[in-house]
């Protein structure tokens, strides 16, 4: 089962649950962070078909309780999201 993680910049209020939202998440298999459209949930049991999402604070500390994520669309890599015109 795929696992992802994302970094919070300030706190959990940045994350919207239950609705489509754009987030930057890291696939733990490839270790690449990508911008995706996804649905998040802090209660994994309430997001059927969701993958595991770990939350990290700004300096890498890991929140002990996993969330869930259902990726709707892969948008781009982090670099392409901001600098594609220079590629």
């Amino acid at each position: 089962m795929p696992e992802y993680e994302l970094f919070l910049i300030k706190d959990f209020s940045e994350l919207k649950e239950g609705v489509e939202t754009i987030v930057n998440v890291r696939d733990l298999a490839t270790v690449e962070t990508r911008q995706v459209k996804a649905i998040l949930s802090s209660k994994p049991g309430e997001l059927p078909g969701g993958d595991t999402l770990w939350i990290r604070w700004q300096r890498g500390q890991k929140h002990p309780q996993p969330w869930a994520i259902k990726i709707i669309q892969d948008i781009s890599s982090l670099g392409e999201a901001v600098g594609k015109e220079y590629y």
Partner: protein
Amino acid sequence: MPFPHDSVRDAIVDWEAAGELARIKKEVDWNLEAGAIARRALEIGEGKNVNHGGQPAMLFENIKGYPGHSIISSSICNLKRMAIIFGHPNPDKATWRELQDLYIAGLEHPIKPVVVKKAPCKENKTFGNDCNLYTFPAPMIHEGDGGRYMCTYHATITKDKNSDWVNWGMYRHMIHDRRSLGCLFVYGQHGPNMFYQQYEDANEPMPCAIAINPDPLSAIAAASPIPAKMSEVDAVGGWRKKPLELVKCETNDIYVPASSEIVIEGIVPPHVRAYEGPFGEYTGFRASPRDLRPVFVVKCITWRNNPILSMASVGRGRDEGGIIAPVVKSAFYRKLLTDAGWPVKEVHCYPGVADLVIVSVKRGRPRVAQGVAAAIYSAAGGLYSYAILVCDEDTDVFNTDDVINSLVEKVHPERGIWVYHQQGSPLQPSADLKERMDQTGPQIVYDATWPLDWPLEITAPPKVTFAAMYSKELQDKVVKNWTSYGLK
């Protein structure tokens, strides 16, 4: 190999011959395992020579998923391995002071490079959309880092927009995707800030090149606080006592060490930022937060056959920075302060905690501690020297017990501590988050010199040591009869 080493491969031969390098043939995962091995080795090695119980440099020759590639880590994590690349005649017995002297000698006798047309770093080339940073086993070094850090021991090379001044620096780079890297560019640094600001003000991309695993002295130069307007590559020539060979990049006018294992060429676009970090740093903490930082877009990658990537699993203890900085920063500050007329005897940045600069001074100059500190803070690399301890000249700055004794017993808690407020380091753990992000964390100076108005003979407490408490005749008698007392 004859000195100087023209490539890291030459140095590997000598490190291995000296028992200072281990080839790891067991398969190792780039995803945290290589970093964990290097980290543990650094902590249990404690910066000692291998024949004194330390750990070797590691050449990981079997990286999971990357046949034909290898990673070298901990190359300069003890004084002996650094002495070998500086051509010290007796590396096993080299001292910090001797390495400083070799460093200064090269700065004072620079030799310009030569440009070659053919170079080992051009054996393989990709351009534009064919570039793929994932061709190389960029490691995920610490769990919880912001990404795979491909560049932790390298030279990031940039050019001044309006002159021929070229800067080499060692600024970490994290992979965003196969064609871009994040950059920790810190305000005040030559290339990342002074040069980049010019390009950004003109709304132009800044050409840039990253030379990964150049010859070992070039990497040292990149990690050194070379003064403004002085070329790092000339200093390398001075240390080598012969010119360094450079080769021109394919896509810009930057020149890189010809023997580099991997060269990444590209641009840093203006006003483009992406989240970079966090990264476990040389301070021993992962203090600098994930933040929006400039992006390096890759235009070309060239590399040697069977390339050797470098990895610095920095953190607590005597990692690459913990060994290199005590030599290069100390030498730089010793020369800087002496040339400016400060009565300095010795300078030593504490190994493993190189943000602590210890300076011993001759007595007589008023406010000597504050003056020395001001000179250091305003010099290159000053923002990474946020703790300064100034001692009397009879303190051995290379002896930890002597240094701690001065700090605790001679720094007056009210008169002897000064807090400075100038530009701070973004990596400073004691600074709060806003101070780190704004680079406004304060610095501290400890004055461990006896006050000038204390007549030394009467007021300053005498030292209680073998050398100070007993007559010369008695000392000689005790030393001469030592074994006859039944002692070793």
